């Protein structure tokens, strides 16, 4: 049982405010991911939770207890560092047993817990090695093992996969998700990689410039982004964003004029989009398909072929480029002019302040 509550959390270094008031609740056994561009304050926020950074203003509660003044050693949390931060002078076994030794655990208890953790992480064969004799992936596992043996209230991960190669990263993502299920523990995970966030999180916290932009499940963020920042950050390839003009209300939503003369009706509540207002239209790349009656036309400027997918970069009237994600190896060629149909269900509209206009219906999987 471990819940976390952040209330009005702020962090300043001199005059520079890094965290500008964060309120957040993380439920027991939840896998929460802090995601955002570099410099957004996500690592600082994690370190404040860990106790490694002082909290300038605000309150931090674990299981309802305010722990602002409790040191990192007494918070009962475990952290996996980006650099792994293994103790270079200790064997893998001693690295994992260090916390237990400090806590005064008996030799037998230490051995049992290390054995259990090394079994879970398949480290049995390496227990007597020093960290310098391990590969990156193995070091990563030792760092996780060091956290597991302590049975912490909350696991904290600070970009733990960013030093691994792409293949290993994919594998570790699955292992971490499995570990979360098996251990039934509350985990907070910091990353700048939205793929990691989407694939592992129960709850994603999108941070930007020291503030929370949106909190929600991966699909909620994907299908119902609260603002332009989240819309652009979540999803790969990025959502296409086009400045357009609202032409009038429609029974199905808001009608907007597309560059080049077409129109599309976005199924959102139109009270904040008066006819004539400049708004931003967001279209997911998979919502654009080649079609002779398409509402959007343009010249293909570049084609990326991934085999199972084709990404067509299309320059539309007015000079903006949109990316269409087409299933399979589509026969589009650079230089040709194509028309694209738009699936209105996967479009979004943002007002002049960048806030999303609410969709009329929720996506069934976006709770």
């Amino acid at each position, binding site marked *: 049982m471990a819940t976390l509550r952040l209330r009005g959390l702020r962090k300043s270094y001199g005059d520079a405010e890094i965290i500008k008031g964060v309120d957040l609740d993380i439920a027991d056994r939840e896998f929460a991911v802090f995601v955002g561009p570099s410099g957004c304050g996500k690592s600082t926020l994690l370190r404040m939770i860990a106790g490694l950074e002082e909290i300038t203003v605000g309150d931090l509660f674990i299981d309802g207890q305010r722990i602002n003044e409790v040191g990192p050693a*007494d918070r009962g949390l475990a952290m996996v560092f980006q650099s792994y*931060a293994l*103790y*270079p002078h200790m064997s893998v076994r001693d690295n994992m047993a260090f916390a237990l030794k400090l806590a005064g655990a008996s030799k037998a208890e230490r051995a049992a817990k290390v054995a259990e953790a090394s079994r879970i992480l398949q480290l049995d064969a390496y227990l007597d090695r020093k960290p310098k004799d391990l590969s990156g992936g193995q070091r990563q596992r030792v760092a996780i093992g060091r956290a597991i043996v302590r049975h912490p209230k909350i696991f904290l991960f600070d970009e733990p996969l960013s030093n691994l190669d792409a293949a290993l990263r994919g594998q570790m993502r699955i292992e971490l998700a499995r570990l979360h299920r098996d251990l039934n523990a509350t985990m907070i995970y910091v990353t700048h990689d939205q793929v990691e966030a989407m694939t592992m999180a129960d709850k994603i916290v999108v941070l930007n410039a020291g503030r929370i932009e949106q909190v929600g499940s991966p699909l909620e963020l994907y299908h119902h982004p609260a603002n332009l920042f989240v819309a652009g950050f979540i999803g790969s390839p990025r959502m296409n964003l086009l400045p357009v003009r609202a032409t009038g209300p429609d029974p199905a939503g808001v009608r907007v004029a597309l560059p080049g003369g077409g129109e599309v009706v976005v199924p959102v509540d139109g009270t904040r989009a008066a006819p004539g207002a400049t708004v931003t239209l967001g279209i997911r790349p998979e919502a654009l398909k080649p079609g002779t009656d398409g509402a959007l036309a343009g010249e293909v400027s570049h084609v990326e072929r991934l085999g199972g997918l084709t990404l067509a970069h299309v320059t539309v009237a007015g000079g903006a480029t949109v990316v269409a994600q087409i299933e399979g190896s589509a026969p589009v060629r650079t230089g040709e002019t194509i028309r694209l149909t738009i699936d209105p269900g996967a479009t979004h509209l943002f007002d002049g302040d960048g806030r999303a206009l609410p969709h009329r219906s929720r996506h069934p999987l976006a709770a």
Partner: protein
Amino acid sequence: MVKQSLPKRVGIAVLGWAAAFVLFFPLLWMLLTSLKSEPEAVNPSLTFTPTLQSYGEVLARADYLSFALNSVVISVGGTVLALALAIPAAYVMAFHPTKRTRSTLLWMLSTKMLPSVGVLVPIYLVFRTLGLLDTRIGLIVVYTLMNLPIVVWMLFTFFKEVPHDILEAGRMDGARTGAEVWHLLLPLTLPGVASTGLLSLILCWNEAFWSLNLTSSAAAPLTAFIASFSSPQGLFFAKLSAASTVAVAPILVFGWLSQRQLVRGLTFGAVK
């Protein structure tokens, strides 16, 4: 690594041996002089009949062991005390620096620029009042304070090399400051701490100004022992050399045995 040509390698070897010989020459000359008789000692000739006569006279005239014991106790005491004070100081400066840390370090080093003789009278008076004249404790205190700036500086630079993440991981594992320093910081910087200790030991062993001025007999170390052989009647070079040889012998052997550690410590962190 590119293999050097033969003449180049020979040249480097000759240069190395030559430099080593120049540095070692005073010691060699002292050793040779100590084996001469007193009349031969003033003559820089290399042909002489070796004799241990001077050693016999030196050891008969003064209680070498008592001086040597004082040197050991005072040097080890001064080094241990300096490390005990400097480790916490360097830890705080390296890992929890403030705006003033840099200036504090510079100020500490600047105290080394003050000539010792400038504070001789005040320290002498303080020692007389406290009854510390001619006591080992007194010299230990003076040596500790004398070496503290350089010991703090060296430890500070070694500690700076340790990644913060490792100590933070220790903190997350439940280590308080004491455990963090003992289980993580010191083992990680052991070569550096050892070479700092060795340097402090050698500086204490060689110190003459304070030992000559603050001790007379009870706490007098080997530097005072050597000085007692330069008398108003003139210098007795053979005896002086014999006294100097027995005085530097212990630290020389100790330094030779630990040179590996010393070199490792002094180049620690130079190459990642």
